[in-house]
């Protein structure tokens, strides 16, 4: 049975590389990274390599574009700005009954719980439901937003939830926004796991030692209505999730969990694996994650397909990662351009995989996006480009 097409009609990225998708894409194509060494004792006692949104630009944009900006936390401001930009050129009515907002985040306003920030905002704003309510009220949307909080797959999973609700015809349009901040909470946590790299991260490389954390927001506007006046459209063809059932803080040693998610996503999209032109992977640059991904790729028999990780450009943006990386993958489809997997020099995973070493042109139609996270969760999604 033919499934309802789900069109990605607009998007936005906010990261260290800029405040629009275009600004981010321009820097990625130029192979510029936003990961730098920060020595800011207010966020961490020692220097850390991270990707941070520029505070002064955020303050200016919030003051110019938001009503009563001071009422909103930093993360809330970012969500509002991202949705404002994503919806600025499309005719989606955010106040309509058939429009829903889905928020993806791992820790939301967790910075407000840190002792140094207590009392700055009402206590309940630490709750993700209350954060999402601020977004809902700002845009006068009539529906209680859904919040997906599923570790590092939150962004991809939130789009998969939207896919399910749109196919069921519960809504015509869904705005999916995902975001997380750099906070002392997450920095110290990943540091305690000894998962952080003290240099720009190197996904899939022999000398990779860990992640760089990043902060960012990604927003997509999804619709069951085909966009008018466009030569090409991008659709979500299928998606799936899975669990490793192996360990709460370490990835599977076999890759079978991610393999299950990839297989289910391909099946959901009615897409033979031979049609996948490109893969945007999770690629955190921790030894175990990248090793696991190579095994899953081998199990799925996708070893020849070119792949990259965006982590070398903007770090690991947690709840935003799946959204931002999907939006960048969609830019690749639109421009028929595969960007270099920054930080990669020499293959350092047990199974041979095809890591993109040089930014180059290639005709592209279908892309696979994957994500994996704590709790043993995995997600995969298929995007495609077609002519109208």
């Amino acid at each position, binding site marked *: 049975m033919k499934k309802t097409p789900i069109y990605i009609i607009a998007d936005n990225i906010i990261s260290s590389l800029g405040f629009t998708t275009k600004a981010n894409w321009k820097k990625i194509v130029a192979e510029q990274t936003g990961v730098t060494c920060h020595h800011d004792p207010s966020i961490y*006692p020692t220097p850390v390599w991270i990707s941070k949104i520029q505070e002064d630009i955020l303050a200016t944009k919030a003051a110019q574009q938001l009503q009563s900006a001071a009422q909103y936390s930093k993360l809330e401001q970012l969500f509002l700005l991202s949705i404002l930009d994503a919806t600025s050129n499309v005719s989606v009515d955010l106040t309509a009954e058939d429009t829903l907002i889905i928020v993806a985040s*791992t*820790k*939301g306003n*967790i910075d407000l*719980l*840190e*002792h*140094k920030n207590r009392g700055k905002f009402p206590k309940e704003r*630490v*709750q*993700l*439901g*209350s954060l999402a*309510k601020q977004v809902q009220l700002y845009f006068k949307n009539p529906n*209680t937003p*859904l*919040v*997906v*909080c*599923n*570790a590092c797959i939150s962004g991809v*999973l939130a789009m*998969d*939830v939207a896919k*399910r609700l749109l*196919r*069921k015809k519960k809504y015509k349009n869904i705005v999916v926004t995902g975001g997380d901040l750099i906070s*002392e*909470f997450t920095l*110290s*946590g990943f*540091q*305690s*796991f000894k998962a952080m790299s003290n240099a720009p991260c190197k996904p899939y490389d022999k000398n990779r030692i860990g992640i760089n954390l990043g902060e960012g927001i990604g927003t997509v506007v999804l619709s069951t209505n085909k966009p008018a006046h466009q030569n090409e459209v991008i659709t979500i063809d299928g998606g*799936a*999730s*899975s*669990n*490793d*059932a*192996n*360990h*709460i*803080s370490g990835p599977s040693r076999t890759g*079978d*969990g991610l393999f*299950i998610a990839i297989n*289910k996503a391909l099946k959901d999209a009615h897409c033979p694996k031979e049609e996948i032109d490109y893969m945007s992977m999770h690629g955190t640059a921790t030894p175990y994650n990248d090793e696991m991904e190579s095994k899953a790729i081998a199990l799925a028999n996708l070893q020849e397909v070119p792949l990259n990780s965006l982590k070398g450009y903007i770090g690991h943006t947690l709840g935003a990662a799946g959204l931002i990386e999907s939006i960048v993958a969609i830019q690749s489809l639109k421009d028929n351009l595969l960007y270099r997997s920054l930080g990669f020099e020499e293959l350092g995973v047990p199974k041979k995989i095809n890591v993109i070493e040089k930014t180059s042109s290639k005709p592209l139609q279908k892309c696979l996006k994957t994500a994996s*996270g*704590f*709790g*043993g*969760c995995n997600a995969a999604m298929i995007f495609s480009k077609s002519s109208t």
Partner: protein
Amino acid sequence: MKQTTTYPCCEIKAGTININGRVIYENTALPFPKFIKGAYKEFELNYPKFHKMDRLCKLAFVAAHFLLKDGQLDGYAPEEIGVVMANSNSTLHTDSKYTDSIKDRDNYFPSPAVFVYTLPNIMVGEICIKYNIKGESVFFVSNQFDKEMLLEYSQDMLQTETAKICLTGWVDYTDEDYHAILYLVNE
């Protein structure tokens, strides 16, 4: 599709464990840690990893036990079993404990064993490990327990053959209150 009232259900709140409307364990005088440990011993859960879990995971784990302990998932492949769960406070209790460990730079002791429990889907992971569940799962956070939404979402997973059986429900923990209610959504 069945009426929601006929799904097997386990509810834990206010010192009481209730299965399909019948109270099977009650100890309303005890604070949560002692109450849940008491239930763990009484019903001989015998799972050493339980003692490493945070309070939220313990609550979810015990609730799931009563729905899954008698081989209810036998006959399903691991990837056919789904999990749809939600709560309102995410991992607030452990988040607070963790922030206390980093408030003082001269007494800084962030612990990975605590940090790992600052994601609510970890309780889904714990249940998946115990029962070898590899299917689709999602964790939602909402201010209110929206039972209809969660059941409808799970039923749609069954109808679209995303899963053949689904563990669905709400598990919330704060210092003031706790509430777990899980259903086994089957055809």
